């Protein structure tokens, strides 16, 4: 099952007691990254700097002065966060070769806490997508494709054909980060979440994916997609670890004026035993068309779990849910049209050889640098922002956004503490099946359950719940009140403890002797 309190009570303790050193930890992770290269989870592996950071951490431990729980912990960062001296590509030709001159605030915070930055993870180009299949470095493979659990359940064709054609997607767009955490190549990873990009791959890869409240964590250095919805996301193997990461990352940043100024106090999660005072809301609109019967059953079972434990479980309504994805489509493309305007080849990034005029150079650079998905969104966004369309589409969408946010507010005001919903419509699809539909269609389908939380700016978390019939992870989502991460995570942690999600059984991991950090659990939820 998920390592309960993995970072705090297991890894950090082991480092403090000298049972393992930061350098050993780093080397093991680097070796595992190499042997799981076929997952394509990493775009850049910063081996030299990581080992240097590990050595520095080791010195601190020797002096008995570690910086905290994260000191010496190998982490990975999605490749749309700026990392000083390390290439940041956003999985796009537009930024190939771009070496960031600065660290994103969240990256700096991780480093200040002594974390060891292993590398940059793969994603959909510019975080646009729900499969991590549309980046220039190729798709990310879900580690569960290679798990004993999945292989046992798949119908074998020929042995070699099986592995090559049967692999499933990670979900997206933070697929690389999710795969990295899921395959044990790092202990935590940063993703980003604009429409579900952290929670979706977390669900498909069987890891915890936290989307914090908008305004809690700095976006400075996160290459923006939708400024009014983007947040840095946290991917870990257990809820306690997510709380540790949150504690080191949250708080006002003078460099990001959309971060709230209130003091943030890092917290440890209590071990909730009495849920009788809890009110769980089940939004009926989240029984969306296309929701697999398996996930529906799991969701229902989860609701019963809370009910039987004494919590108040009520059906609620968020009437504008079905418009969330349409609203997102308009607002996202509009903001993308604006945000992508900075890529003109002049100051950084790809530059075309065309030199007849500034405009033709810009146009050629953008044609060469962006993939179809990005270009499509830019054009759509510009359409919705045209003078004749501005009121009709952009302002209209902003009004619908308010209605969506109001839906949530109304439900929380009625006494509901936390909402429980599915995270995805089904378990991970095989890659060959996923690419049959285009990116926009897929995103519209896959973001349906996660998008509204971004619209309203609310915190939400995916908790791995059970394995599907196909042996793949399925997660459930909790949505909380604004800035009430402690309550949200406390509930999530209680749930995580009840379901005892199984550990992935990967050959590569076994070979690298992760015994000290794994334990098998006998009971399971499904």
């Amino acid at each position: 099952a998920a390592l309960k309190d993995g970072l705090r009570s297991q890894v950090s303790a082991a480092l403090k007691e000298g049972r393992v050193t930061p350098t050993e930890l780093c080397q093991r992770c680097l070796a595992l990254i190499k042997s799981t290269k076929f997952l394509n989870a990493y775009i850049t592996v910063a081996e030299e700097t990581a080992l240097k950071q590990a050595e520095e951490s080791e010195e601190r431990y020797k002096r008995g002065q570690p910086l905290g729980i994260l000191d010496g912990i190998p982490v990975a960062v999605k490749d749309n966060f700026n990392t000083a001296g390390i290439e940041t590509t956003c999985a796009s030709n537009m930024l190939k070769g771009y070496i960031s001159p600065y660290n994103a605030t969240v990256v700096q915070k991780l480093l200040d806490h002594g974390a060891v930055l292993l590398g940059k993870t793969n994603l959909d180009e510019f975080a646009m997508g729900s499969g991590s299949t549309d980046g220039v470095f190729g798709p990310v493979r879900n580690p569960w494709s290679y798990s004993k659990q999945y292989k046992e359940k798949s119908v074998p064709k020929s042995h070699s054909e099986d592995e090559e054609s049967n692999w499933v997607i990670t979900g997206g767009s933070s697929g690389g980060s999710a795969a990295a955490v899921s395959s044990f190549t790092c202990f935590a990873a940063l993703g980003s979440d604009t429409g579900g990009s952290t929670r979706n791959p977390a669900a498909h890869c069987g890891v915890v994916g936290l989307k914090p409240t908008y305004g809690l964590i700095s976006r400075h250095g996160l290459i923006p997609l939708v400024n009014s919805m983007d947040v840095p996301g946290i991917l870990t193997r257990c809820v306690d670890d997510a709380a540790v990461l949150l504690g080191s990352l949250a708080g006002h940043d003078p460099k990001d004026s959309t971060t709230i100024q209130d003091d943030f106090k890092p917290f440890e999660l209590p071990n909730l035993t009495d849920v009788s005072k809890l009110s769980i809301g089940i939004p009926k609109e989240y029984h969306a068309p296309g929701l697999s019967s398996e996930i529906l059953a799991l969701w229902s079972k989860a609701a019963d779990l809370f009910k039987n434990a004494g919590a108040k479980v009520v059906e609620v309504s968020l009437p504008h849910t079905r418009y969330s994805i349409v609203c997102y489509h308009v607002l996202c493309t509009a903001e993308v049209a604006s945000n992508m305007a900075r890529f003109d080849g002049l100051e950084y990034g790809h530059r075309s050889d065309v030199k007849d005029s500034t405009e033709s150079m810009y146009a050629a650079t953008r044609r060469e640098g962006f993939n179809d998905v990005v270009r499509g969104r830019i054009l759509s966004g510009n359409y919705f922002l045209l003078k004749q369309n501005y009121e009709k589409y952009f302002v209209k969408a902003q009004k619908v956004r308010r209605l969506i946010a109001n839906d949530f507010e109304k439900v929380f005001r009625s006494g509901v503490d936390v909402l429980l919903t599915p995270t995805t419509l089904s378990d991970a699809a095989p890659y060959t099946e996923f690419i049959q539909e285009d990116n926009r269609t897929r995103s519209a389908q896959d973001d349906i359950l996660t998008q509204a939380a971004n619209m309203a700016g609310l915190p939400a978390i995916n908790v791995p719940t059970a394995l599907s019939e196909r042996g793949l992870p399925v997660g459930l989502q909790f949505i909380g009140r604004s800035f009430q991460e402690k309550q949200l995570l406390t509930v999530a942690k209680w749930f995580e403890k009840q379901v005892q999600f199984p550990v992935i059984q990967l050959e590569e991991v076994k070979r690298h002797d992760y015994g000290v950090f794994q334990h098998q659990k006998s009971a399971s939820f499904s």
Partner: protein
Amino acid sequence: QKVSVEVLAHLEHLALVDFRDAEGVERLQKAIQFADQLHEVNTVGVEPMDSVLEDRWCLYLREDDVTEGNCTKELLENAREKVEEYFVAPPGNIPLPKLEEQEAFLQGS
């Protein structure tokens, strides 16, 4: 209704991104169709929402103190074409290909 060729050309000019082919145009048509669902929602009397943090007014103006800068070298490092401390751009004020040329292209594909 279909988007006119004038609007398509106008969009390409604004976005400095081309539709490339009929598929690109079709993609836009589908996107508009999708967005049209918004009109099913009654938003009479509803104010547009710019930011979820509107109640927690956090957009403040800070003091006009220079706290960072002097990073010319770093800023120039990622530029491909530069001369001394200048970014070099091709000549400006030259308009892109005319509408007629574009129209021929779009009709042909």
